[in-house]
């Protein structure tokens, strides 16, 4: 009964989305305010219906209703409750429901936080989001219904893939989808502006906070995916340039370019058409990512669902959304007009270069991800593109981008002069260069890449310090505390996010440069030293989990004769699917992670094991977290709150004050 209610709610939601996708947009076109006013209640109604459907599916999982096909195929009676609930998004159908659910959350958020928008704008935005949800609901109801019954009911479920039975997997997909779907708001703003023909600085100011929030979620989501791969897959890598990872990374690159380009549109009125194009791009890539991962077209560790008959719907949907919005763009964008001119050496110029580099990197990732698929589809042979490709492309493309990241925030808008910039940044440059030359020696070994990585990281931090100092010197407010308080939050947010990049670079550089990985056979009682730590293997014993049995190893780790920690890696056998899983043991630390995982039993209690020493690896995810915090700080800036509170969008005092900054 309950699953039928959920199914019915989805059908009703589809009907509501048809209304939401047509009437308000039509109303905005003909200036009928009654039709436009349908948007708000329709968006909220759709949210309630999708929420109901989502709860019904959750209920089916909670009570182990194995007469629902999706429940039977992704959970099991022995599966603990938190993983049964996380199994809602454990496969294709439920992921789509999660997608639509999150989309309706964003729609409700827009409906409540858009009182300052003109009615036509709001109607168009919600209408466009309604059309997107229409596509997804139609997809679900026609070819991938999560409420489909299994008659006769299964005696027990097939269980959730053991890899997904992990706390990280409980939050990673919702976070990632909050980011993906969040770009639908930026997309809807862009389409609404194209439809209405009013693309101006206020448009950018309205869509900026939405875009930044979505970007923060996506940053966290991608970082969590990487962290999950690190501790769950059992071989200690943190990024594989796997197509699924690329699928989440491409929207991130587009979104990063977008928040920078929106800054120019907001502050200077430039880059309008480009911002719109980036918004379309970011959302299209989010759609592509969702489908690449969840339709099973990829040969990859994440593609659990495989059903080619859905392919056609997906292709048509992508073609309609991407093609439709690009046609609209081609038709309306020329009217937008150009912003003010600027010289090549100016903040705009540097942001433009940064955008070009980010998009070039995006194109390189897209090529490496899709080209093998195309060749395969055309039957021209099977190939794969290895991680070295992405590494060789990324370092030269990102190096100038990060170098500019230091200069850009200090350059004047419109026209800056290089000699003056060089003079202001001479100390930052000297410190970075000196560090790059000496620090690697002190840590152990000088290699060009380690030197480059450290230089870029220090460069970001030192230029941030220079920028902040200059800003404080020019700020009014008397005491140091007063002047610090006068610096707007969007500026702090930018500094923080940029420093997050620096932390991230330190992590990557140190891991790539100094990690020690050792695969070896260990007898009981044998010791081995990796990265200055001595690991003693004390044998393996059986332990019983809720839905698995495990061989748990014991490793005593000591440094200079002093015991540091005891680690318990496991080799689990999940009984339902008879699947083995390596559960690595990690001793995290600020300066290093120790990583132990079990391979296979060899003989007489000996095992093959992996012992890794990973310096600074947690900085990688720490850096991402700092970037996201920077974004949050920027969104909390006063100028957005003022824009929210007041009906009129122009707030002269705040804009004047913030005019000198981008965030």
């Amino acid at each position, binding site marked *: 009964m309950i699953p039928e209610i959920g199914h019915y709610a989805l059908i009703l939601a589809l009907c509501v989305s048809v209304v939401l996708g047509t009437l308000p947009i039509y109303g905005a076109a003909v200036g009928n305010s009654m039709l436009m006013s349908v948007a708000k209640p329709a968006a909220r109604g759709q949210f309630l219906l999708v929420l109901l459907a989502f709860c019904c599916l959750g209920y089916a999982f909670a009570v182990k209703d194995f007469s629902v096909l999706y429940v039977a195929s992704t959970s099991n009676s022995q599966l603990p409750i938190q993983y049964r609930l996380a199994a809602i998004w454990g496969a294709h159908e439920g992921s789509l429901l999660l997608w639509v659910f999150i989309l309706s959350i964003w729609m409700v958020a827009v409906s409540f936080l858009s009182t300052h928008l003109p009615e036509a704008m709001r109607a168009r935005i919600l209408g466009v989001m309604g059309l997107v949800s229409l596509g997804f609901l139609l997809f679900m109801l026609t070819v991938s219904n999560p409420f489909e019954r299994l008659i006769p009911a299964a005696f027990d479920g097939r269980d959730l893939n053991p890899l997904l039975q992990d706390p990280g997997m409980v939050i990673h997909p919702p976070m990632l989808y909050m980011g993906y779907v969040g770009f639908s708001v930026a997309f809807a703003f862009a389409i609404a502006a194209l439809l209405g023909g009013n693309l101006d600085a206020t448009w950018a100011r309205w869509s900026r906070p939405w875009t930044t929030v979505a970007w923060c979620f996506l940053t966290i989501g991608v970082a969590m995916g990487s962290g999950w791969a690190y501790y769950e897959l059992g071989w200690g890598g943190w990024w594989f340039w796997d197509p699924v990872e690329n699928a989440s990374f491409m929207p991130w690159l587009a979104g990063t370019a977008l928040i920078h380009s929106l800054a120019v549109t907001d502050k200077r009125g430039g880059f309008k058409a480009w911002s719109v194009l980036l918004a379309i791009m970011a959302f299209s890539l989010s759609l592509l990512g969702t489908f690449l991962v969840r339709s099973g077209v990829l040969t990859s560790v994440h593609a659990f669902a495989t059903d080619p008959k859905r392919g056609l719907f997906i292709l048509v949907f992508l073609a309609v959304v991407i093609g439709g919005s690009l046609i609209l763009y081609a038709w309306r964008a020329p009217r937008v007009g150009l912003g003010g001119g600027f010289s090549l050496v100016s903040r705009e110029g540097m942001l433009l270069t940064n955008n070009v580099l980010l998009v070039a990197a995006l194109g390189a990732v897209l090529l490496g991800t899709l080209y093998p698929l195309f060749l395969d589809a055309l039957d021209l042979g*099977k190939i794969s*593109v290895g991680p070295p490709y992405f590494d060789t492309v990324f370092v030269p493309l990102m190096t100038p981008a990060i170098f500019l990241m230091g200069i850009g925030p200090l350059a004047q808008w419109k026209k800056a002069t290089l000699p003056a910039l060089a003079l202001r940044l001479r100390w930052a440059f000297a410190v970075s260069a000196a560090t790059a030359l000496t620090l690697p020696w002190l840590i152990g070994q000088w290699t060009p890449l380690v030197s480059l990585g450290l230089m870029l990281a220090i460069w970001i931090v030192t230029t941030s310090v220079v920028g902040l100092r200059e800003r404080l010197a020019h700020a009014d407010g008397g005491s140091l505390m007063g002047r610090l308080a006068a610096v707007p939050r969007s500026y702090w947010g930018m500094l923080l996010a940029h420093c997050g990049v620096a932390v991230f670079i330190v992590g990557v550089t140190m891991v790539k440069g100094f990690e020690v990985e050792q*695969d070896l056979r260990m007898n009981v009682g044998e010791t081995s030293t990796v990265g200055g730590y001595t690991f003693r293997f004390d044998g393996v014993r059986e332990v019983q989990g809720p839905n698995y049995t495990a061989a748990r190893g014991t490793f005593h780790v000591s440094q200079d004769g002093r015991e540091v920690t005891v680690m318990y890696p496991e080799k689990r056998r999940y009984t339902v699917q*008879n699947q083995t899983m390596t559960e690595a043991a990690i001793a995290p630390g600020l300066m290093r992670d120790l990583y132990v995982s079990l391979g296979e039993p060899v003989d007489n209690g000996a095992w093959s094991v992996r012992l890794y020493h990973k310096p600074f690896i947690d900085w990688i995810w720490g850096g991402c977290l700092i970037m996201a915090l920077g974004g949050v700080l920027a969104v909390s800036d006063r100028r957005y709150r003022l824009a929210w509170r007041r009906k009129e969008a122009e707030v002269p005092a705040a804009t004047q004050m913030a005019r000198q900054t981008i965030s």
Partner: protein
Amino acid sequence: MTPRQKRFGLIGLGLLALGVASMLVLNAFQSNLVFFFTPTQVANAEVPKGRGFRIGGMVEAGSLTREGDGLTVHFIVTDLAKRVPVTFKGILPDLFKEGKGVVAQGQLGPDGTFLASEVLAKHDENYMPPEAAAALAKAKAAGAQSSRTLVIPPQ
């Protein structure tokens, strides 16, 4: 400089940067493409010499042996028509099993043994890597069914 010259300068600079970037990307792309071959293709010597590639198929049942160091393993990858011996030093992924699909990346040694640098993990028990499945299907289509291996065909 007139605005017109400046614009042309900018466009030229942009095109130059684009050209350099594309060259870089395509060059890296060319040198990092990894091609996939079936055991039959390996046996027919259709594979590149001195360059890495991937092979895929099934791990022949009963073919897995382990050396005394506990790390070096030998097994045979087959598409039910031809068999290729593989050597790998390292820890095998969780889903590596005899009679199941596998994809390995590495180079062909002088004695015809495939020296794998990486054995790819695919995370589903019933999942056959598409490359491996394709290799089996291709060999089957070629009418090479009558090979004398002890492998149970996949269901």
